[in-house]
């Protein structure tokens, strides 16, 4: 089936074009559900038979009536007609259900595969692809593929058989009339195809207008404070008017086309019937055809209408489905560059020694300079390292390659002396916990967010301990449902500091050998941060800790500090050494100290101190 499909779609296209590649992938899914499709094909054949027998049976029964055969015989013919009608209905039911269910099954499989595949792709992929784009492929394009497999396939596969069957059936009545009747169909398939694709593109345009108007309203409401503060109401109303008008016009265009559909559809049986009347009468009068046959022809003319028009629409569906599949295929064809290779080892217990050997890394865009350039660094197990440097120096990238969020070449990064590309991902990431900059939380209870990296049956104490260590326990008490409070997109909004501490608790709950803090505590207030630090000092014992910080203060006490600039290590040593050296680090420290007295500490003073002073004074 897929071969035929590919052939219809790819007429005139040679080589392994993207569409062909996509359809080959689709055919894998079809083959997997081959039983369904074979059964369906069989049902279709039976259905076509009953579909074309019905008009004949009507004519036969009418003939009985007209020719005055015995009453019992007329009844018998009516019962047969009755049987054909019921049988045809049942067959149609099975046919639709089979092919639509199969389409849903394939949709289900593709969606699962897409999801699984996305989870395997490296971070660099998600830099390149915007979420909205990925979503539209997972939602809209998959929908189009399902339409291809459901109504598209149903009609495109069934209609030709239907027409051949109808022609054969009609020719038993009158070959001349049968040929005449079939003549207009090709033209109507063409008309319906034009109409169908116009219908599609107009409904798409209307939908787009609606969604761009939604976006506008959404933005207006989300930014209502600015709209009001800057007296933008009139300007916004004008813009809304434009969107509103566009939507009205697109909708009207759609209406004009969709209303034309039934009008044009009615034309086809009209042509058929006019022909039947014109030629049929003569045939009957000449005795070449019975009265019942005229009935049969009128029924044929009417019941072939729907398949004709749906066929034009179905061809559009097929084309759209094919290009949608191509877009899905684009994602599925991206090789997961970070995966377990044959022969990768499962490290039972990772001690936490990290070694960079001339590590160079660049993001996909080859034109850009290397994000990390010749990094040589050894972090012995159980020691701490601080990474500082200006914005864009590559600090976060350096931290992110340790849990293999980005692809690293062989021989450049070693954990416990083993090349990181040789370690099984699961065992590597089990041992490493990272608190990323943006502290993303999922829409689930707080408890599950903290236990995110843990097995489902983990004892609650472990979650509680992690929350306490991250100084989150007190905040949790204040939440409406404590640990069961729903957070994230669809839950309550935690403050920036609370989010960061939740992310910290999530990492601590893993009890990792290597802990990476990527500028983690920027939004935590000073007091809390101090408490966390006190706890961390204890937690750091026995772990390898990597601290990425934009502020010198966060790394002063660590065992070693590296200063990154433009992807290179420009300085390294302990705090005192680096200060004494009077280089980049010392300059950074001085700048920040000055800045801190002027801004940071004073800001803290106003906020924290005042609260406290008021608390004591009032």
């Amino acid at each position, binding site marked *: 089936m897929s071969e035929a499909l590919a052939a219809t779609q790819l007429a005139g296209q040679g080589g392994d074009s993207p569409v062909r590649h996509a359809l080959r992938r689709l055919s894998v899914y079809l083959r997997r559900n081959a039983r369904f499709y074979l059964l369906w094909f069989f049902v279709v054949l039976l259905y076509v038979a009953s579909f074309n027998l019905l008009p004949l049976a009507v004519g036969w029964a009418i003939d009985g009536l007209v020719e005055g055969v015995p009453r019992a015989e007329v009844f018998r013919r009516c019962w047969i007609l009755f049987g054909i009608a019921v049988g045809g209905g049942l067959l149609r039911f099975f046919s639709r259900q089979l092919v639509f269910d199969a389409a*849903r099954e394939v949709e289900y499989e593709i969606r699962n595969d897409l999801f699984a595949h996305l989870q395997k792709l490296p971070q660099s992929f998600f830099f390149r692809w915007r979420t909205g784009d990925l979503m539209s492929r997972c939602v809209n394009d998959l929908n189009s593929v399902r339409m291809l497999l459901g109504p598209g396939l149903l009609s495109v596969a069934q209609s030709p058989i239907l027409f051949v069957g109808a022609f054969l059936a009609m020719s038993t009545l009158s070959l001349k009339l049968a040929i005449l009747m079939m003549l207009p169909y090709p033209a109507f398939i063409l008309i319906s195809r034009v109409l169908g694709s116009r219908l599609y593109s107009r409904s798409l345009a209307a939908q787009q207008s609606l969604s761009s108007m939604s976006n506008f309203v959404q933005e207006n409401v989300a930014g209502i404070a600015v709209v009001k503060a800057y007296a933008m109401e009139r300007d916004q109303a004008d813009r809304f008017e434009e969107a509103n008008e566009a939507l009205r016009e697109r909708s009207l265009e759609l209406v004009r086309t969709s209303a034309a559909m039934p009008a044009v559809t009615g034309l086809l049986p*009209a042509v058929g019937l006019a022909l039947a009347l014109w030629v049929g009468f003569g045939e009957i009068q000449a005795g070449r055809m019975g009265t019942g046959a005229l009935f049969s022809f009128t029924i044929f003319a009417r019941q072939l209408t729907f398949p004709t028009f749906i066929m034009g629409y179905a061809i559009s569906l097929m084309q759209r489905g094919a290009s949608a599949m191509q877009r899905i295929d684009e994602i599925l064809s991206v090789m997961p560059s970070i995966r377990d290779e044959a022969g990768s080892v499962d490290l039972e217990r990772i001690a936490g020694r990290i070694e960079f050997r001339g590590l160079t890394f660049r993001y996909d865009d080859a034109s850009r300079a290397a994000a990390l350039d010749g990094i040589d660094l050894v972090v012995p197990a159980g020691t701490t390292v601080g990474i500082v440097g200006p914005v864009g120096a590559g600090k976060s990238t350096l931290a992110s390659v340790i849990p293999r969020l980005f692809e690293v070449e062989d021989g450049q990064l070693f954990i416990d002396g083993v090349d990181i590309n040789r370690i099984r991902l699961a065992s590597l990431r089990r041992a490493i916990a990272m608190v990323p900059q943006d502290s993303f939380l999922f829409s689930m209870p707080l408890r599950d967010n903290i236990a995110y990296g843990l097995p489902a049956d983990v004892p609650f104490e472990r979650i509680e301990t992690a929350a306490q260590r991250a100084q989150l326990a007190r905040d949790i008490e204040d939440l409406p449902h404590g640990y069961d409070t729903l957070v994230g997109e669809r839950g309550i909004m935690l403050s920036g500091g609370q989010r960061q501490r939740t992310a910290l608790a999530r990492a601590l709950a893993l009890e990792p050998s290597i802990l990476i803090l990527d500028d983690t505590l920027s939004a935590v207030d000073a007091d809390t941060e101090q408490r966390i630090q006190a706890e961390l000092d204890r937690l750091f014992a026995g772990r390898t800790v990597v601290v990425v910080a934009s502020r010198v203060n*966060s790394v002063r006490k660590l065992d070693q500090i590296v200063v990154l600039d433009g992807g290179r290590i420009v300085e390294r040593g302990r705090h005192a050494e680096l200060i004494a050296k009077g280089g980049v680090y010392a300059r950074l420290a001085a700048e920040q100290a000055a800045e801190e007295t002027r801004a940071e500490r004073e800001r803290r003073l106003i906020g924290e101190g005042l609260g406290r002073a008021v608390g004591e004074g009032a």
Partner: protein
Amino acid sequence: MSSPASGRTSATKAQPNARPTDLHEEEELGRAYDGRLLLRLWPYVRPYRRQIWITLLLFLPIFLLELAPAWVVKVGMDLVLAGEPTAGGWANAALAGAQRWLATPPPGIPVAVWLACLYFSVSVSLGLLSWLHQVIMATTGQYAMFDLRRAVFAHIQLLPMSFFDTMPVGRLVTRSTNDVENLAEMFSQGLVALVTDVIKMLGFAVVLFLVSPKLTLYTFAIVPVMAFAAFVFRWKVREAYRAVRVKIARINTQIQETVTGMKVVQLFSREERNLADFDRMNADHRDAWHQSIRYDSLLFSTIEVATGVTMAVIIGVGTGIAEAGILYVFIDYMQRFFMPLRDLSAKYSVMQSAMASGERIFQLLDRTPSVRDRVAAIPATDPAVAGSVEFDHVWFRYGPPADGAGEAAGDAAGDASAGAGAAADDGDWILRDVSFRVAPGEKVAFVGATGAGKTTIIKLLTRLYDVDRGCVRVDGVDVRDFPQQALRKRVATVLQDVFLFSGTLARNIALGRHDLDELAIQRAARAVEAHDFIERLPAGYATEVRERGSNFSTGQRQILSFARALAHGAPVLVLDEATSAIDPTTEAAIQRGIRVLMEGKTAIAIAHRLSTIRDVDRIFVLVGGRIVESGSHDALLAADGVYARLYRLQAEREEEEGALAARPA
């Protein structure tokens, strides 16, 4: 590790409305007909009543044209079989004249050709008229809905801020888009279609009966069964489909969330469990579809079976040769009778959701804007006090049934100014008897803990809310005596959370002021040091802002908001200083920007930076909604009050912590 010194971000007031929460919002369905609602809809339809009359008038010829084609065929059959049009039933007698006309072609044209041409032209006219009917009906709906949508949007913009505090954004979007769309459906395939369909079916029933009472009685025995089945199946399809929609929404949310949080997913090796969860949702969705497919297919088959079975019955009870023509008419009408039946329940559902949507829309339109313009004209102001700001014994709280937290609690519709006097309980006032006066050109700062009422002062000043007692004056005029637009053009506000609109950077600075040319925009940007980073962007000022400014850093967004305020050149500046931590270089730029911004203006700042506080002429210390101290930095230190105490406290702490990062030798 040492003292970390990353800034303190206040546990920012949670904005409960900042996310779309109705991803799973189930549409509640109720009545399919509500006279009160239709009455309220009437003003929007009224301008288009002529079109409605036209559609109603068109209905009659359409119905007649639908009756005609079968009759043409019948006459033909009669001619072939009996040599002349036969009469049976009452209708035939009445139509004898018409039949004779049909049977007599103009001279020179064979009767078969004549009938074929008649048949064809009737069909074409019918198609054209139906198309016209449908287009006029839908166009009317679209125009009426265009007006309604405009009314909804205009109304949303008039609503007070308190409304937006508790109303999820998504819901408002739904009101002005999907809900209106549902109502529009009512026009194209709901109410009118429903009524005309019912009339049409009745019409066919009557005609069928007139043609042949006997056949009609026989066939109508099965009609109720078929009608019932069709209705039930369509109903089931709809229910199954609603289940499907909820499930697909869940799936899409899951994909979106996983993609957004992919880093965490991978870091915590959650892939397999995620996939298992996803598989369950996905399978649920597929199974829900299975239901919907089953009923949909049943519906399709039922209609088909119905047609076949009626034919069998009609032929079975038919008698004799003369009836062939009548049988044809009968079969034709029977099919036309079934057609509307097929989607009667679909139309009923359209009505249901239209009514539900209408109800929600009118609920929204019934909310009165509590902040209203008392006057249309800009009041004359005394130039001597132009640029002055005064709070005169101001009391304020959010919404009538405010809870302890005080922030926008209770009903979103809460009219902030209602029941002020009745409020004897003391607990929930955000501002208590606040009085101060800022002279033209003076700069003041408000300091205080979170929840002390600092932000509220800004909101009252720009009249996002109205005071409960007392009075706020700008330029010596009660803010309630300004048209809101005029007031807000006098006061430029810089908010903590910088909101960027989609569109270009230039548009984000100009914010709807079309009189600001490129030069003015650039001048503003240059003054606050935004020009350099803007020029470095590939498209410069024409750079498109993506997803609410995600392509700009926090610091850049703040600086852009300064440019906005500066470009607007209002004499009064209100600044809610952001607390978020920013890298030192940007921080310095922000501070310089603030200084530029305040130059030559009356400035009121909610300050978090000491540099800002030092620059102002006077500091007000807010505690629990009252001003407890005011004066310059030095004066307040000398006064040895709250401000001084906190200053000393901080100094002690600094000593304890030891020196900051060592300075270079």
